[in-house]
């Protein structure tokens, strides 16, 4: 495939039907290659083969997951909030006052293991371009992360690099980081999860779609020059394995990001939108030009003709196949009416962004690509972009699932007295998963753009959208691989429930969902079963909660050798808040506030933080899900926030009630005295992870009004304590000074990574 070799033209392909082709090395299966030949009525050219192989890879075609993802559409709850649904670069949600919000989470797992800094950085870059391509101004990012054991030497390599990469790219773009997750578990040792979420804001009339229509309209490639990076990255890197097989020599699989170039691309693109200069637009991500041209042409009405010689190159030795597959970052592709081309190029010049007309929309129905005067691609674009193979992969509940669920944590030794209880509280609170994440989040700019109302460590990130009306949005992401391993259906629902609850806890009304489904190899029936269960669980739960899935990402083949990661559905929920000044923070900031526990507490410790930290145990069943209860809880939290009945709220999740108390006390700088309610043991009260619960701080003057409201609506509440003093005290059990707690909670990550 070198530039000096004879170019494999369409004509040449027609007369050399038997020429051997490296379809297997490119990741295609025999029947897939046969199908390509059938579609074209001849063998594909090298360039066509490159395009099909990359577009039909798992990463781009969703061939294993498609049949399951269809449920998100089929079971989508009726809502009039959705302006653009699944299938576009990102979904778009109506938040009122003429504003629309688009948001999406994506993975960059495999690249981040190989080269943590650049892998994570380009992950941010990619998701930001997705949001930009919808017509929105990106306004914030979030980063749900999973790493191997906190004390494993390789985690010391991966985590600091990933964090520096996310910060290095996001900070330089000027996007506040408003939240995320950091979870450690040995199952992610050889396969960290680096998910990245971006949210953007626009006016309804500014929505842009990725389609090429209007015969004669020009296709403009703008942004960075095309280099040899990431070639084969999509099909080889993202879908199959980590080994070097099949990668063309001296073509780096690692892409280096240039955040400054992306910042220029953002400003330039927004100016282009403002002047209404584009008819269609698409970012270049995985599969580069192959993807952008085939998707634009496929979604549009006509065909497209591209002149590959016009593409500005960083490396003149690239072959046409490589140019089509290159994943060079910071590029976009726009469809522009001829009369707007001059102005378009002028805006790009103002921002020092290279822009080149590389083709035009034709009145045919083919995607035609030329190189050095000869035709090298002639395909029906739909067959490349939207009609890839679809698999119904076999799935089967793994044999070990029963034994895992039978291994109930009820058998684990529990703390015998107050002293031991205190030790366990301290151990859980200072364990890597529960400890303060400041060492990480302090490397992220949370202030830039001046609209960050809430950020880490709050339950959700919150952004002001309109400074005049105080309209805002909140977003949280959650996912608990331990729960999902015990029961993928319930685990996915718990991820949604927690994220939904986090958004409601800050006073925002949950509206819509994005998800990143991180799983092992789809060729393993056990993994496929986990995937099928998780998607079914998520789709069912979205239906009940009335929050449609608007888009997301599937990341498969997350495994080291034969060992798959825990199934890890990461769920992001977007909510709207009419007046951000009414947000509910998590801090216990005032002495004398009364603490009320909302919801029911049962003895539920399967997959819990306590079982993990104290006993290294994973077994039993995850907490039960009651979605109607989650809805009711959210309504109460919203009403209480709107009517000023609560000063603080914190959702209960990993680590249970005591973990929430610790976090809210440390944030507010005040202690709390807790009383164990009747009917619960101190241990269950403190550590159970029953879902559908939150802790709120109620001013004395509002207590009756608040509890009356809860009673009237049927939500159980119990007064469990009061904000007071300088310690977390559980009456009759133990006292734990805030100083000691803070020191322990703050020390963990710096000791490991500082």
């Amino acid at each position, binding site marked *: 495939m070198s530039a000096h070799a004879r170019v494999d033209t369409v004509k040449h392909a027609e007369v050399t039907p038997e020429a051997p082709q490296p379809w297997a090395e490119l990741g295609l299966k025999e029947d897939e290659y046969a199908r390509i030949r059938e579609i074209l009525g001849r063998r594909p050219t090298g360039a066509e083969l490159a395009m099909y192989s990359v577009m039909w890879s798992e990463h781009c075609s969703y061939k294993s997951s498609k049949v399951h993802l269809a449920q998100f559409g089929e079971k989508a709850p009726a809502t009039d909030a959705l302006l653009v649904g699944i299938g576009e670069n990102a979904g778009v949600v109506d938040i009122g006052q003429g504003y629309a919000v688009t948001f999406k989470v994506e993975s960059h797992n495999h690249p981040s293991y190989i080269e943590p800094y650049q892998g994570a950085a380009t992950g941010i870059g990619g998701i930001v371009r997705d949001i930009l391509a919808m017509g929105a101004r990106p306004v914030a990012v979030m980063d749900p992360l999973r790493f191997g054991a906190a004390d494993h030497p390789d985690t010391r390599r991966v985590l600091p690099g990933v964090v520096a990469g996310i910060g290095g790219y996001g900070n*330089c773009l000027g996007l506040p980081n408003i939240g995320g997750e950091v979870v450690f578990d040995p199952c992610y040792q050889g396969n960290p999860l680096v998910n990245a979420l971006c949210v953007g804001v626009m006016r309804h009339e500014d929505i842009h779609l990725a389609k090429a229509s209007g015969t004669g309209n020009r296709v403009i490639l703008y942004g960075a020059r095309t280099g040899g990076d990431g070639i084969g990255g999509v099909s080889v890197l993202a879908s199959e394995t980590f080994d070097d097989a099949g990668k063309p020599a001296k073509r780096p699989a690692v892409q280096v990001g240039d*955040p400054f170039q992306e910042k220029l691309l953002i400003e330039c693109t927004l100016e282009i939108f403002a002047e209404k200069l584009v008819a269609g637009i698409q970012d270049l991500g995985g599969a580069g030009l192959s993807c952008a041209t085939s998707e634009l042409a496929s979604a549009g009405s006509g065909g497209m003709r591209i002149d590959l010689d016009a593409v500005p190159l960083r490396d003149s030795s690239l072959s046409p196949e490589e140019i089509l597959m290159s994943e060079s970052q910071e590029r976009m592709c726009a469809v522009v009416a001829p009369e707007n081309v001059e102005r378009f190029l002028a805006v790009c010049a103002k921002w020092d962004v290279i822009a080149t007309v590389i083709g035009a929309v034709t009145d045919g129905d083919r995607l035609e690509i030329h190189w050095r005067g000869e035709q090298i691609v002639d395909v029906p674009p739909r067959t490349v972009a939207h009609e890839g193979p679809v698999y119904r992969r076999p799935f089967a509940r793994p044999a070990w699932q029963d034994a895992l669920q039978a291994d109930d944590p009820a058998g684990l030794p529990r703390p015998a007295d107050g002293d031991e209880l205190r030790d366990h509280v301290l151990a859980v609170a200072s364990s890597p998963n529960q400890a303060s994440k400041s060492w990480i989040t*302090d490397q992220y*700019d949370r*202030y*830039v753009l*001046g609209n960050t109302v809430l950020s880490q460590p709050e339950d959700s990130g919150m952004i002001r959208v309109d400074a005049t009306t105080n309209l805002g949005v909140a977003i949280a992401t959650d996912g608990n691989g331990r729960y999902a391993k015990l029961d993928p259906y319930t685990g996915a629902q718990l991820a949604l429930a927690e994220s939904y609850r986090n958004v409601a806890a800050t006073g925002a009304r949950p509206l819509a969902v994005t998800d990143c489904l991180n799983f092992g190899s789809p060729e393993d029936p056990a993994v496929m079963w986990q995937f099928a269960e998780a998607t079914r669980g998520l789709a069912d739960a979205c239906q009940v909660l009335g929050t449609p899935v608007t888009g997301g990402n599937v990341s498969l083949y997350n495994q080291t050798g034969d060992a798959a990661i825990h199934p890890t559905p990461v769920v992001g929920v977007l909510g709207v808040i009419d007046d951000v000044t009414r947000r509910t923070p998590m801090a216990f900031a005032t002495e004398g506030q009364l603490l009320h526990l909302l919801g029911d507490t049962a003895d539920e410790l399967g997959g819990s933080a306590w079982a993990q930290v104290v006993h290294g145990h994973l077994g039993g069943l995850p907490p039960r899900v009651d979605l109607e209860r989650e809805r009711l809880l959210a309504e109460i939290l919203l009403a209480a926030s709107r009517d000023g009945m609560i000063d603080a709220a914190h959702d209960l999740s990993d680590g249970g009630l005591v973990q929430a108390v610790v976090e809210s006390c440390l944030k507010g700088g005040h202690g709390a005295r807790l009383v164990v309610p009747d009917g619960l043991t101190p241990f269950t009260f403190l550590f159970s992870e029953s879902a559908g619960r939150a802790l709120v701080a109620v001013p004395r003057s509002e207590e009756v009004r608040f509890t009356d409201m809860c009673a009237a609506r049927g939500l159980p509440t119990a007064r469990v304590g009061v904000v007071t003093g300088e310690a977390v005290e559980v009456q009759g059990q133990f006292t734990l000074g805030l100083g000691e707690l803070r020191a322990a909670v703050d020390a963990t990550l710096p000791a490991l990574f500082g």
Partner: protein
Amino acid sequence: MTTRVGVVTFPGSLDDGDARRAVKLAGAEPVALWHGDKDLHQVDAVILPGGFSYGDYLRCGAIARFSPVMETIIEGARAGLPVLGICNGFQVLCESHLLPGALTRNDHLHFICRDQRLRVESTATAWTRAFADGQEITVPLKNGEGGYVADERTLDELEAEGRVVFRYLDANPNGSRRDIAGITNPQGNVVGLMPHPEHAVESLTGPGTDGLGFFTSVVGVVGELVAR
């Protein structure tokens, strides 16, 4: 007549919008200035905002210093025009030699974003008149290269002439020599600091409103300073 405060946008500037918002909240009129345009459009004062101008690739502020707008600003500053450099703006001012010293990689080698307590050491500048001497304020700090360095003689001179304008309180966040967070030129019209006062102008979105004083300082006193 309202005071007109120019805020420069370099390619890669990030906090230019926030600086304009702060100017407005302080009762002045923000004027957007473009890096490629030498004309200052009759502004009474200029802010060089935070960000990563030109990607900060060579050294922070190194490329921005040579932009057309800086030519006019350097000239103006020498003639008494009030100029405030925030974070990247401070780096640009040092690279332009309007302020002495340089900003280097944080000693812990990480980008750091946190609410920082500062002491106002001098109110004799165009940008700190609204504060009280010794006042303690909290504003966000966020940078990767905020360690202030200069040779001993320069540091002694800055101290002796009362030109250290802000000092870090609590832990020094980046290894800055003598806890220096911000300095001024001998005339007091050019001030540079690493922390971001423009992110402390609304309690909803910042740690408080301590940053407002920077922007109110320059309102009204501008004519007087230029005359000096």
